[in-house]
């Protein structure tokens, strides 16, 4: 069988792993990166013209809810995997709050089996940190890691019992995986549905103060000090949390953090029309918080961009605001939304690619986020200037709960390759089975 060769020609190759940022050709052989150089001859190659495009390692989403098993009406691994590659993500980490929860190796194995058959993107499960996400009894971390779990999290919920959290962190050192926390003090949040502040006051909706997040981030950092474990703070939303994370890292603690595209670009004022597609946990916060999050991402205090892709059926969101489930979809819009930071010249393209691929891969120890020779050829081609109007109905996710529906965005995914195989091309759509 002949060697399959793909040549991506003339693009701006952005490889954060090697700090490469220059026009070059990228050669792929047998699903692996073979070479990155200028003017590689196109002999026996499928050629993809990348002139004017960015060529980067495929994005790694370290926080998505693919809903399978149990809530396939919202999303499944097949639809979520397609949405991922349409958004330039070649690896997706799926959260444990499925039904049943991914707290048992059989569920982990099920997810991986489905992914192998159904998903064009690589799927890596995060397993629950406690059984049934109940925050009481820790899961069998060694067995789950053996089955393929890459980290542990009760995401969507906070382990409120500090003693349980301490033991979860301590025990995780056995497997060396990060504990990913949804930091939100449940009692202080109460029925809070939007950020506590002027917007909540105007809307008459119960507020969820930034302190609810900061208190838990602070607690968990103290526990990292106590235990020496690895902590990853999911979807940081508040300026105060950023400060706590910065200080923890200055003290040399193993604390990493992610931020979502929506927390980087929207404030709570997006909720002024009561659109439930702006309801999420943690909530959209103030301009002050957004400014701090953007600076922290640029600076590197926040390591990664993660979507927190949270699909919900239309009828679930078409209810009164407080009754609507939290979360929005984000796989297909992530790049276009965060590209705003490049457009505003707050971050350079290479660093943005690092936060979307190299860093999340590093935190979870995944073989991704690099264009080094012999690395799996997971590659994304991006047009950073292209304007398009997002229509969730034409997307691949089963759900449509997006605050960007109908909006014009700048920056589009032009092609996605997983293991050297073209799985998405703008105009043709997902090319998978």
């Amino acid at each position, binding site marked *: 069988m002949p060697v399959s060769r793909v040549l991506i020609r003339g693009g701006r190759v952005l490889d954060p792993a090697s700090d490469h940022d220059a026009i070059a050709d990228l050669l792929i052989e047998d699903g692996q990166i073979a070479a990155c150089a200028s003017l590689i001859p196109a002999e026996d190659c499928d050629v993809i013209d990348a002139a004017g495009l960015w060529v980067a390692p495929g994005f790694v989403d370290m926080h998505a809810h693919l809903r399978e098993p149990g809530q396939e009406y919202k999303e499944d691994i097949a639809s979520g995997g397609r949405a991922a590659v349409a958004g330039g993500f070649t690896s997706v980490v799926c959260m444990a709050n499925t039904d049943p929860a991914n707290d048992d190796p059989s569920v982990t194995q099920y997810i991986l089996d489905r992914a192998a058959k159904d998903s064009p993107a690589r799927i890596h499960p995060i397993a629950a940190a406690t059984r049934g996400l109940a925050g009481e009894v820790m899961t069998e971390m060694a067995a789950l890691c053996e089955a393929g779990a890459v980290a542990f999290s009760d995401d969507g919920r906070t382990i409120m019992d500090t003693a349980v959290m301490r033991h979860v962190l301590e025990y995780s050192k056995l497997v060396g995986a990060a504990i990913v926390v949804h930091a939100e003090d449940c009692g202080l949040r109460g029925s809070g549905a939007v950020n506590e*502040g002027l917007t909540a*006051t*105007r809307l*008459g909706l119960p507020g969820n103060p930034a302190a609810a997040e900061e208190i838990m981030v602070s607690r968990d950092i103290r526990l990292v000090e106590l235990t020496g474990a690895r902590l990853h703070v999911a979807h940081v939303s508040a300026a105060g949390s950023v400060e706590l994370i910065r200080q923890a890292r200055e003290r040399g603690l193993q604390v990493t953090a992610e931020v979502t595209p929506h927390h980087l670009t929207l404030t709570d004022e997006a909720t002024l029309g*009561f659109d439930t597609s702006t309801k999420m946990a943690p909530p959209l916060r103030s301009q002050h918080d957004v400014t701090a999050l953007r600076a922290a991402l640029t600076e590197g205090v926040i390591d990664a961009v993660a979507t927190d892709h949270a699909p919900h059926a239309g009828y679930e969101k078409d209810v*009164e*605001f*407080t009754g609507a489930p939290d979360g929005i979809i984000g796989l297909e819009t992530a790049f276009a939304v965060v590209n705003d930071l490049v457009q505003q010249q707050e971050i350079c393209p290479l660093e943005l690619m690092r936060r979307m691929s190299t860093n999340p891969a590093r935190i979870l120890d995944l073989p991704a986020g690099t264009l080094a020779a012999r690395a799996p050829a997971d590659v994304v081609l991006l047009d950073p200037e292209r304007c398009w109007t997002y229509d969730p109905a034409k997307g691949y996710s089963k759900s449509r709960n997006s605050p960007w529906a109908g909006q014009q965005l700048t920056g589009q995914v032009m092609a996605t390759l997983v293991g050297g195989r073209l799985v998405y091309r703008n105009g043709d759509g997902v090319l998978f089975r």
Partner: protein
Amino acid sequence: MIGQDLLGIENLEREQIELILETAERMQEIGAREVKKVPTLRGHTLVNLFFEPSTRTQTSFEIAGKRLSADVVNFSASSSSLTKAESLLDTGKTIDAMDPDAVIVRHKVAGVPQRLADVLEAPVINAGDGAHEHPSQALLDMLTVSQEKGRIEGLTVAIIGDIAHSRVARSNIYGFTKLGAEVRVAGPPTMLPARVEALGVKAYTSLREALDGADVVMALRIQNERIAGACFPSVREYSATFGLDRVKLRYARPDAIVMHPGPVNRGVELSHDLADQRPSVVLDQVRNGVALRMALLYLIAGRRSAVERG
């Protein structure tokens, strides 16, 4: 304004408020007639869509509609069963398909009228949504004050009680400030919402300071069942610190009037005698409510498509 939604006072212009109040004053004359009915909205259908029971507001809208000869249909629904059986928007669309000329919506959660207005062709009138707005109540309060005092501009209005959970407070804050009154809010710190002063009011935790020089004192209803224990220690302590009686009322101007959106918890927000005797104007508020809602229905009822065809 035909076919336009009335979701809150926040997005009304001063001129619109003044038109509504002027129209309501004209409508008051009909209430004084022997035959309290005019043919204006013959052939119009109004739907009272109340997800949360409210006998007062629903009855007031119903009488207002009937005095204008509209057909008024009451659609009461428990919100909990609705969210399970069909989505809120489906309920709205179902009612809209029956071609009403206005849908009057009450819901315990903020924003529901807005969400319905986004999908309904009929204009939506917010009859109270959670702690968001209660525009018809604020308008009837403004009508009552302007008739009692002859003006609103330059008055000092003190709103006392659970500001955080009050839609009446929010709508009145917007309305009275737009018409040039000074608005103060006062209550226990646990009942003052975040950054309330950004709405253009002064916030007090001292009843005495809030009442000093006030022309209008508006007491809000305490939702005992929901709030007690969380936002204040006991009804007794609330009543002692923020309950109005004739002694505490001496802090206000001698000619100050006392208002309450009702129903009054006698002995809690207002002393027994202040619940219905001068300077309380609570019953005038109720009476004015019908004329005010007639004005709203007169100005608003009518389907958008009919207007566009016309």
